[in-house]
């Protein structure tokens, strides 16, 4: 905690120092004080936009994780399906999500849907690949036993492979929780008037740089809290499961 405070103070001091020494105009780099002021004056508006972003992030995270986990299980079942899907998945990651945002807005409109879709696209891959990795690394001794015991593929999946892969799934989910807000914000930049991304774009256009920084700050804090909450929830679930 002390290191965090020290770090924050150092950064703020450097920030203020750069402004004094370089004589930067506020529309290029607002002072920490100006950002705090903007945050306070626009608190109601920022909170409203943050609410939209958080909703998109949570819905996208849940939907994307579910899809990613389901795909990993399907690929874990069938080597052939995995062989077909793996290259497609990798290829899908070569497309920059930024490039997809306008198309998604075109298809899904200016509401929440394209932002959620964007978040799903970002969340999906780390969850699917981490979980699949775990599903493919079940201890051989347990698999041998299961085969000799006459277990079916579905029960082996349910009772051995999935539980053994839960820590890997948790790793993917923790990673995805950090990235999820990026998806939502990119979606908001491109279309619509709601959410922190939209607020930033509009403020930027009107040279209200202090408001951009204030929104950015709220986004960062929100992301940290969201990622932390996911990590704590996963830890609780896993320790109850005894893995």
């Amino acid at each position, binding site marked *: 905690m002390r290191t965090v405070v020290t770090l924050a103070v150092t950064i703020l001091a450097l920030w203020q120092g750069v402004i004094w020494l370089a004589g930067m105009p506020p529309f290029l780099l607002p002072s920490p004080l100006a950002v705090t002021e903007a945050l306070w004056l626009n608190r109601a508006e920022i909170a409203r936009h943050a609410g939209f972003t958080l909703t998109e992030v949570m819905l996208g995270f849940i939907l994307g994780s579910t899809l990613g986990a389901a795909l990993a299980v399907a690929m874990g079942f069938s080597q052939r399906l995995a062989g077909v899907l793996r290259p497609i998945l990798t290829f899908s990651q070569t497309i920059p999500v930024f490039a997809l945002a306008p198309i998604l807005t075109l298809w899904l409109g200016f509401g929440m849907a394209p932002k959620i879709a964007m978040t799903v696209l970002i969340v999906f891959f780390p969850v699917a690949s981490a979980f699949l990795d775990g599903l493919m690394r079940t201890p051989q*001794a347990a698999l*041998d*036993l299961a085969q*000799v*015991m006459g277990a079916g593929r579905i*029960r082996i999946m349910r009772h*051995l492979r999935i*539980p053994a892969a839960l820590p890997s799934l948790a790793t993917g989910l923790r990673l995805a929780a950090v990235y999820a807000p990026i998806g939502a914000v990119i979606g908001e930049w491109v279309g619509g008037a709601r959410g922190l991304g939209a607020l930033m774009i509009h403020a930027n256009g009107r040279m209200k740089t202090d408001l951009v920084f204030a929104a950015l700050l709220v986004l960062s804090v929100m992301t940290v809290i969201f990622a932390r909450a996911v990590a704590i929830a996963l830890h609780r679930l896993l320790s109850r*499961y005894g*893995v």
Partner: protein
Amino acid sequence: MTAAAASVRGRAWVGEAPLFAPVDLVLEPGGWTCLLGPSGVGKSTILRLIAGLETGARFEGEVTRNQPVALMAQDPGLIPWLDVTGNVTLGARLRGTLRASFLSKYPGGRPSGPIEGPDGRGAEPPADPATRAARLIKAVGLADRAHHLPANLSGGQRQRTALARTLFEDRPLVLLDEPFSALDARTRAQMQDLAARLLDDRTVLLVTHDPAEAARLGDRILLLRGTGLTEWPRPAPRPKGAARPYDAPEVLALQAELMRGMMA
């Protein structure tokens, strides 16, 4: 002579290198057959062939097995998130037959099982998985640890759990793949006594690299070397349901003979 419990005839390669010369192993029903040999000579491959498992070697020949089988290996393969009882009943869980014990209509029994006696009255219903598991856990001496997770057990206790799990499967043919090699000498001797008692009247194939173990437990001893499989002269009969004493002169003599055979 009754039909063989299992047999392996053929040879195996790993890549281009031969793993073992042509072998002809016929497992007679009843008693303990010890397959003794140094590491890397293909003992476990033969056992895995009988179990129907992937071996990683190329095998040319014929494998037969006429009986259902249970497996216990050096790695006990315990499931870390299941307690001792959960691990012992793993087979039932994986076959989807564990739920039978939750039927309240026949406490302690499953309704589909055969109930003998007139109208089934007074007859004991077949034991449900939970009751059987509890009995077996008691038999291996872990009654007070039935709800411990594997992480909280010693190496010997883990192998006891694995033994109870093997017994829970209740198969006539039991394959043991160096189950006690990772244990200290004292625990190993105790496990040998316990296994000899609890696996009596089953057909057992014990794969081991320890001549002392073969000398204590083998009703029939087969030596596997690079040159092939050699049948050792049958040792004197074992006391019923027990291992031979580890310090008896004839056991020590047999151990020395087997060691000489392995060094040859």
